[in-house]
């Protein structure tokens, strides 16, 4: 195989910036400073502090008198990477793919329906679709658990009984628990994606569609050639945010299936619920912080990969 010659890009010469440009840059940074400091306070500091704690022996027996013990916690944390951890990692990847795929398709369809010109009561539909977002997640999840999936009082089993079918314990096995958690997660996450998609769709210049219609393009061609390429850069950041939110999902899975005192019998674990049960309950903050940092690095690697794909 011939090796292709790499094209070497000519190095750009930096032009000397004018005093006016320097002033603008100076003001930009000065105006951003409060936000940067706030981000430092709520985002950067906890990460750095967790990194620091992960190097110490902070646990119940050394709560306030902890010492730096180097990378010992990381060595122990790597022992957590057993079959259970790997299984949870694979399940989490599957969980993220399934949720994102359904979320993107469902949000696109619903946002497209909301953008039909002749649609009446558009605002009412939009409000209704945003409703899950307005409710606290904790309340919504427990309402789904008790109101819909509960084998004694849940709506699903009431329907099953009316239809003369055997009642089902929806959250007791891994597959049905996965499906139930996906449904609840979609219910909670769709409003955000619909809102972003709706905004993106509204930002498309209508003249593109008019020209395409004049050229004889059908709905599918218009969607593939105009809608999707145009909204892609707009929804891109939202998709990346949602991918990570879904990947590090805890509350939906934990509250539906793993909550202390209300376990359902399912062994469906995401990476975070697994590490919670196998590390965080030990009250060993050094060890738990090391695991958090490892998960953080894992997410950074995913993020880096996504960024590369986004660029390409």
């Amino acid at each position, binding site marked *: 195989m011939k090796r292709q010659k790499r094209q070497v890009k000519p190095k750009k010469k*930096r032009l*000397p*910036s004018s005093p006016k440009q*320097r002033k603008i*840059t*100076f003001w930009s*940074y*000065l105006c*951003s*400073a409060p936000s*940067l*400091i706030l*981000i*430092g*306070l709520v985002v*950067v*500091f906890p990460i*750095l502090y967790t990194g620091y704690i992960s190097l110490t022996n902070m*646990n*119940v*027996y050394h*709560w*306030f*008198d902890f010492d730096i013990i180097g990378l010992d916690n990381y060595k*122990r944390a790597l022992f957590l990477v057993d079959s259970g951890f790997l299984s949870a990692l694979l399940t989490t990847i599957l969980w993220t793919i399934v949720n994102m795929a359904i979320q993107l398709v469902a949000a696109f369809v619903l946002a497209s329906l909301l953008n039909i010109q002749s649609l009446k009561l558009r605002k009412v539909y939009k409000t209704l679709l945003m409703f899950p977002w307005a409710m606290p997640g904790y309340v919504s999840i427990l309402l789904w658990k*008790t109101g819909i999936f*509960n*084998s*004694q*009082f849940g709506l699903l089993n009431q329907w099953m009984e009316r239809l003369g079918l055997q009642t089902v*314990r929806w959250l*007791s*096995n891994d597959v049905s628990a996965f499906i139930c958690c996906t449904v609840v997660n979609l219910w909670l996450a769709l409003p955000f994606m619909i809102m972003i998609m709706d905004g993106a769709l509204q930002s498309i210049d209508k003249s593109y569609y008019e020209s395409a219609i004049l050229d004889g393009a059908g709905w599918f061609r218009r969607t593939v050639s105009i809608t999707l390429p145009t909204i892609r850069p707009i929804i891109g950041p939202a998709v990346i945010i949602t991918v990570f939110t879904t990947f590090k999902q805890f509350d939906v899975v934990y509250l539906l299936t793993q*909550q*202390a*005192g*209300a*376990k*359902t*019998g*399912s*062994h469906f674990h995401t990476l975070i619920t697994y590490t919670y*049960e*196998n*590390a965080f*309950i*030990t*009250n*060993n903050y050094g*060890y738990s912080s090391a695991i958090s940092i490892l998960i953080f690095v894992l997410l950074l690697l995913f993020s880096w990969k996504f960024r590369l794909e986004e660029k390409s």
Partner: protein
Amino acid sequence: MKRVRKLAAWILTLAVMIPFVFTSVGCSQGADADTDSNQVVIWHDKEDAVAEALLAELNRLVPDVEFVLEKKTSLTDSLKLSGNDPSASPDLFIFAHDKIGVFAEMDILAPVTEFVSEETLSSYLDMTVDAVTYKGEIYELPIYFETLLFMYNRRYMQDEEVPSTTEELYSYMQANTGRGRYGFVEQHSTAYYSAAWIHGFGGSLISEAGEPLLDSDAVKNALSYHLKFVELMPGETEYSTVNTLFIEGQADSTIGGPWMVPSAREAGIDLGIAPMPVVDETGLSLSPYSGVQGVYVLKHAAESKKETIQQVMTALCDPSVGIALAQASGCAPANTACYDDPDIAEDEMVTAMRDTAQIATPMPNIPEMDVMWTVTGNLLSDVNLSGEDVETAADEAQKQALDLIAAMQ
């Protein structure tokens, strides 16, 4: 341009450094904070009726001290973060005794014997004093205790039908379960509830030395025996389902705490309370865990407000406090002097609780218990809800418990 880049670097550095500066300033302020020695801040997680009764009693008994009662939903987590910081933590807090080991190891507690003599504590029920003792020190002043009780709905289960043994209970369940009704319900896959069955087989979740005992024969026998009861109960194990079934009259009997009583009475249930059934195989009663609620003193308060805390702790030993709180909570007082009060002595619930205290097992107060709740919960759900083999599941749970306990260090 160089200057601008330098400025950008400075701003970014500041963004990272300022939080550290804030934190260290916060810490040093905390250490220097001027404490009002006449004010006592008490954290709790109790219902309003209990807090109000306590405040009224304290105001009456120690009028010179100003009390601030703060309800904290995640009290133990807050204390883990700020237990040694006088500016961010309370002077006293009220909680069950099972966290004593954790907080004592964190070194944020002062022994209550610094303020209350052992002679005073000798009038308390032995079970309550044992429960609050950790490594030979008493870290909590017991006020009242709670434990699980066998409750039944007289409309469906007559007094003469109340089972005295577990086999009688099983026969009753077989005869009265079906078509949406249950003879007996409990939170069968929750460690706190299932412990009663394990104790009934002479077993335990963990030894006093902190060694898990999930693979012991007693635990395995208890889980195997309990399975046939689980089959006649609903699949859900959480409080809301069990409570609703009993309150709605769909379940004839249950094992529940005193916290169920107000809603049962409100629902018009003719509530009966009976002794725990005896396990036929062992001759031992089902022995539920008991939780002793009481007052803890934080170390910093014991040093900086010694006299005020002394006054408050002495007042808390007054039987009137136990009586008022027992009346507000429906639980049994820890101080035996409280039972001289006719209202307390004649209260059916309190009497039942005191009787159950004879057989109840105080929840272990060692730090290792923190991981045992989760591991035992998983074991129960594996056996009762996923149908896993008792032997295998118990051995795996034992291994997980050992790993987690090792990871605590």
